[in-house]
């Protein structure tokens, strides 16, 4: 097993000096090595390198007066209602207008026909493409990281861009909310808000199910 290799001082043999008898300096290192590997395995097994990741969200500051609340233009709004069993009901436009907007059902999968990812991506296509372009040029080294970030911030903050209103119902799971927020990230939606669900929308959910 593991041995420390020792050089014999062979050259000295010519001089017939009386020397102390050399005892072998070979130490059996096997137990030590065994222990070292044991520790190694232990630490490898117990170490987790994946630190938890976080998602930063900014909630809008509560306005002091209700009149200060921002109005969302009807053409820009996309409302996503989250309900039980990972189901999503979404509609474009706003409630309470002349006509009730048409609702559609979607799910969280990426590939299905009724994928919410596709819906958001389609609605946000122009901004998404612009952000993608900036990211491409960042990847090719044409832009500095700070500049790219600033650009993306500007593009996402476009006043005429899509505004997504996320309204989780009482039955929604926390996972659904995180998934949707994640989707905002992926689809480069800069303007979104988590809003309390309104009564007409609760009624609406009942009719859809």
């Amino acid at each position, binding site marked *: 097993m593991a041995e420390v290799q020792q050089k014999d001082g062979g050259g000295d043999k010519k001089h017939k000096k009386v020397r102390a008898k050399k005892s072998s300096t070979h130490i059996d290192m096997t137990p030590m090595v065994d222990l070292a590997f044991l520790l190694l395995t232990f630490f490898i097994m117990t170490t987790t390198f994946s630190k*938890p990741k976080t998602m930063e969200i900014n909630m809008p500051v509560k306005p002091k007066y209700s009149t200060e609340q921002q109005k969302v233009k009807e053409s820009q709004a996309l409302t996503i209602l989250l309900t039980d069993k990972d189901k999503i009901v979404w509609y474009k436009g706003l409630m309470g207008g002349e006509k009730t907007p048409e609702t559609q059902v979607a799910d969280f999968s990426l590939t299905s026909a009724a994928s919410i990812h596709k819906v958001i991506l389609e609605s946000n296509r122009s901004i998404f493409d612009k952000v993608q372009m900036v990211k491409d040029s960042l990847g090719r080294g044409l832009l500095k990281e700070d500049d790219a970030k600033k650009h993306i911030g500007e593009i996402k903050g476009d006043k005429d861009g899509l505004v997504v209103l996320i309204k989780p119902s009482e039955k929604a799971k926390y996972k659904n909310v995180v998934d949707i927020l994640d989707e905002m990230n992926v689809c480069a939606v800069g303007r979104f808000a988590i809003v309390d669900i309104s009564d007409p929308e609760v009624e609406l959910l009942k009719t859809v199910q």
Partner: protein
Amino acid sequence: MPKIKVPKKAPSLDMTPMVDLAFLLVTFFMLTTKFRPEEPVLVDTPSSVSEIKLPDRDIMMITVDADGRIFYDVDGKQTRATILQKMAEHYKIAFTDKEVNKFSILTSIGMPMENLKNYLDADDNSRKAMNKQTKGIPADSLHNELSDWINFGRHANSKYRIAIKGDGQANYPVVKAVIKTLQDNKVNKFNLITNLEAETNAGTK
């Protein structure tokens, strides 16, 4: 045909480099490993593509488990003691030095104030049992202890970042109550702790 003679040689191998490497790795892992204290609840966080790392220090963590119970955790021994003393004053419960000490070395707390004294006096095993039974920190609008915890926490250390660690299966209304409490305390910027999404999934996006 002449036989090919295999030269007899001792099958010993110089293992020194391997052992060196092994020790190097052992040292590395020993130095980098930080043992995590045991959490009272297991939380399965949802995944996201976000790659922002959670800072190591100055974190105020609000945990929501799958049953919708709320737990509160801050780091820093000194700060924890300060926060508990403030809470004690506010709720007019006297804690002994021993209890304050115990509080400062524990992790997440999911006890209403009235049970906290018993919880801190209990031994480890009964504490585990209590954690199973507890209803978590009350955060409803009538009796919002979480709000006080957050408030005193931020007074004790203004650098605290607030993170919500929610179980994916937790009902949203509980998380909403937490967020509302945060907003009432003028915290509009906080973090949601998530796992990194599996690579295959993120690749298709």
